[in-house]
């Protein structure tokens, strides 16, 4: 067995990137603020951020402690041979010895390095008062070491009204791409601060274990509601329908520049006859007469168009009156009380925040209440003290029949008011999720995960063995820590022991992370043609930190960043494009982002109306924006964003593509998904020839930052002038290193 001393681990220090230094802070006690000591028999434990790997599973031994004899369980832990120090890195997993193994699924699952979560870890945070079992030597060691700073700072007060919010990275891999966004919506009650993220499927069990879902039943309640409705006589005589039929028929001729047909004239006459009958009926009320006159006025306009033609008709509304009515509605009522120590959650139909983006001010606002309906199920979680969360679980949302893009979405809501930015992250602990910003060491783990998925390395020889070794390192570290602290652990009751085992698990995960990174980096290196991890890490394209381009955080892939010229050459004469047609280009550029459907919803763009099985929300494409590969020489028309150097975007690790219209499907259960046709290979994407090809980028593109298009084709000189004025007012003089005057062009310029 090793000693567990600091010196014994030094040989595993991660180099040569220097970014993957061991995260040296001790693991923080659940529910204990950073820097606050907790007394216990073993002395003080923990200050600084909870470590990476919080999301990772307890080894089976630890999980088994819940229901078994404590001493026996500890004994079993100690009977296993080996130590972290004795485990070579990474000898046992050569390419020759290990068969290819599928680690990452091709769909939009969490990066393949993740391990399945286990309920055993879910009690993290339940009980912070359990005594610590650490020793003096450990505390001293902690003091000597440096804190690994977060890759992204967490703002205490996210900027109010900023539609895209503030992107942050959260440690571990509880969240897809470790990403979260802090948004502060403007509202009359003060800022509505919300954390938005996407929980990985593997981390869901932990979250669910934090909840008590007693179940609900529906009860009818009577509520007073203002409703707009047509008069009964209108519905009986079908005046609205007859008028609409006439309008639609005539409108069709006007729009298609067709001669007025006998059928159109007959439809008009039928409507006139019906409306006239009501108007001439002495028995009708004044309201009914007004209704009939409303339709007759419309029909007079139609008559004029039949006779004279001209521009299409304006929108003609049915006659409606507003009435106050008692309406029966069904509400969900909990069946019982939540379990002690858990968060009460109620089940309801899925929904989304219904924010609004003010086109004038560019500010997003939300009243904290209004939501749009979605196709699926969600939990509303009471976190106490005015805090709430909304989670849309994987297990309740069948991907074949509900919106794929909402699965795993988590919202954490602070009470109204500013200043909850850091608490929004801290509060994730209540949901048994990692609640600390990502450190550099964790960042490299995420980077490698993303590269394995992006480059399709999960089945490469040696990769499975590397994963097993990585997990083995952690298990051994757990054993070693248990051995060191045996005296303190033996005296604990079952609950306290569980808590301590969780603490040990966190600490072990944190301690071995640099070694795990080294093991996996080495495997990734060999799978991608490098001699080893050191050579890969020293290569110029190896960038294990995210790129922050103002509004997004993106991770790169070294097979592109290390071969920029090759990728650029592959795309020679080809561009990536996105057309918004006649859409509001100036408005789009005022937000500065080309955002996915899901992002647009949180920004307050979009009505939330409608649903379809063909919707991108069902295929999963709603989490991405769609671009197309086209010849650079093609005339893009107006309203088109063009990236003439696609390598600017191809460096990202989060895209996938189809050489055809697959509705951006990433949901394996959707009929438009094709495992054979989907690709993440930039060289294959460069060869896309179908006019309906599609390349999907997660979240969206920052149009004003490093990912700015090289051409923005306006529909008119006037539109170009308007956008230039807007850029000038905002101090934007260049895009992607080019003067904005050169980037903005009109169709005729090409």
């Amino acid at each position, binding site marked *: 067995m090793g000693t567990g001393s600091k010196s014994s681990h030094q040989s595993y220090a991660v180099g040569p990137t220097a970014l993957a230094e061991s995260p040296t802070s001790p693991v923080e006690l659940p529910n204990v603020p950073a820097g606050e000591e907790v007394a216990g028999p073993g002395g003080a434990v923990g200050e600084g951020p909870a470590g990476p790997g919080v999301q990772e599973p307890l080894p089976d031994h630890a999980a088994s402690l819940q229901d078994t004899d404590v001493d026996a369980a500890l004994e079993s832990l100690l009977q296993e041979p080996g130590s972290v120090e004795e485990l070579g890195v990474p000898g046992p997993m050569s390419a020759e010895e290990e068969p290819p193994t599928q680690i990452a699924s091709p769909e939009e699952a969490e990066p393949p390095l993740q391990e399945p979560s286990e309920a055993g870890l879910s009690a993290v945070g339940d009980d912070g008062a359990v005594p610590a079992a650490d020793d003096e030597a450990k505390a001293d060691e902690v003091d000597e070491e440096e804190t690994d700073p977060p890759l992204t700072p967490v703002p205490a007060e996210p900027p109010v009204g900023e539609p895209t919010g503030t992107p942050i990275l959260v440690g571990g891999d509880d969240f897809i791409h470790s990403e979260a966004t802090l948004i502060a919506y403007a509202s009359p009650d003060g800022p509505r601060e919300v954390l938005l993220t996407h929980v990985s499927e593997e981390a869901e069990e932990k979250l669910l274990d934090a909840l008590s879902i007693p179940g609900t039943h529906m009860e009818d309640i009577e509520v007073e509601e203002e409703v707009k409705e047509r008069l009964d006589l209108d519905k009986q005589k079908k005046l609205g329908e007859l008028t609409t039929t006439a309008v639609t028929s005539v409108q069709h001729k006007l729009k298609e520049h067709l001669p007025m047909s006998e*059928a159109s004239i007959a439809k008009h006459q039928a409507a006139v006859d019906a409306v006239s009958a009501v108007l001439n009926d002495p028995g009708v009320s004044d309201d009914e007469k007004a209704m009939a006159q409303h339709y007759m006025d419309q029909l007079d306009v139609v008559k004029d168009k039949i006779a004279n033609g001209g521009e299409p008709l304006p929108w003609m509304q049915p006659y409606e009156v507003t009435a106050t009515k008692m309406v029966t509605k069904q509400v969900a009522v909990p069946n019982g009380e939540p379990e002690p120590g858990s968060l009460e959650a109620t089940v309801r139909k899925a929904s989304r925040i219904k924010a609004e983006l003010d086109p004038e001010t560019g500010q997003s606002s939300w009243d904290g209440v209004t939501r749009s309906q979605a196709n699926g199920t969600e939990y509303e979680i009471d976190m106490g003290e005015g805090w709430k969360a909304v989670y849309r679980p994987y297990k309740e949302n069948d991907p074949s029949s509900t919106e794929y893009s909402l699965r795993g979405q988590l919202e954490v809501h602070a009470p109204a008011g500013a200043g909850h930015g850091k608490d929004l992250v801290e509060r994730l602990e209540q949901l048994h999720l990692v609640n600390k910003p990502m450190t550099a060491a964790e960042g490299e783990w995420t980077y490698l995960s993303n590269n394995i998925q992006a480059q399709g390395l999960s089945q490469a020889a040696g990769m499975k063995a590397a994963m097993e070794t990585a997990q083995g390192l952690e298990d051994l570290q757990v054993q070693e820590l248990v051995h060191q602290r045996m005296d303190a652990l033996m005296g604990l009751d079952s609950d306290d022991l569980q808590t301590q085992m969780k603490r040990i698990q966190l600490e072990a995960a944190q301690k071995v992370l640099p070694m795990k990174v080294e093991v996996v980096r080495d495997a990734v290196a060999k799978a991608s043609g490098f001699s080893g991890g050191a050579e890969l890490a020293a290569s110029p394209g190896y960038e294990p930190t995210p790129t922050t381009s103002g509004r997004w955080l993106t991770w790169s892939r070294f097979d592109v960043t290390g071969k920029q010229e090759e990728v650029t050459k592959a795309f020679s004469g080809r561009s990536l494009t996105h057309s918004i047609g006649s859409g509001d280009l100036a408005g789009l550029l005022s937000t500065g982002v080309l955002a996915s459907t899901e992002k647009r919803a949180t920004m307050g763009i979009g009505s939330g109306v409608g649903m379809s099985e063909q919707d991108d929300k069902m295929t999963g494409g709603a989490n991405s924006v769609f671009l197309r590969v086209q010849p650079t020489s093609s005339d893009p028309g107006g309203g088109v964003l063009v990236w003439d150097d696609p390598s600017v975007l191809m460096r990202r690790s989060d895209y996938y593509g189809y050489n055809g219209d697959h509705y951006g499907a990433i949901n394996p259960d959707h009929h438009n998904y094709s495992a054979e046709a989907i690709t993440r290979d930039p060289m294959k994407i460069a060869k896309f020839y179908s006019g309906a090809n599609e390349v999907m980028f997660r979240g969206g593109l920052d149009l004003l930052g490093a990912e700015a298009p090289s051409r923005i084709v306006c529909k008119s000189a006037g539109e170009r002038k308007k956008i230039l004025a807007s850029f000038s007012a905002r101090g934007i003089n260049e895009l992607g290193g080019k003067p904005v005057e050169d980037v903005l062009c009109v169709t005729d310029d090409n």
Partner: protein
Amino acid sequence: MAAQQQWQQRFLDLLAGHHSTTGDPVDTGARLVVLNPDGQEALRAALARHFRFMDDGQGVWVRPLVGGDDTGEGYLFNLGIARRRALQWTDATDPRLVDDAVVMDLVTGQLARVEPADAAELTELNRWEEFTDRLTQEEDLALRRLDADSWHGRFS
């Protein structure tokens, strides 16, 4: 008439509603039915009356009428959902006429059938025609061009 001309003419007629028996093309239109290779129906939706053949002659852009919803403001469509879609057929088999329909073997392995709309799809087409009366001429023309990858404006 050559086979290609025949199916293209039929395709055009179906979308335009020229097969109407009332004398008014607006009383009917086309629907799209897509079948997976195993015969399972993947999509059944009315088609807007506009279309655009692709430059390579191997596909056509259409607009399946999905994403409609009865709201407090009437029946509306989400133009972010009712996006243009591509029907691309294989090199090996050109589209063909089968009874009243135009049938396409798609590059995805699916089979598409464009046929006269009735029942629910005809109702949806009528709702679409009514909905488009709310649009400005510019918006209406933008939809007809079938060139946008996303919709940035009202009703998205």
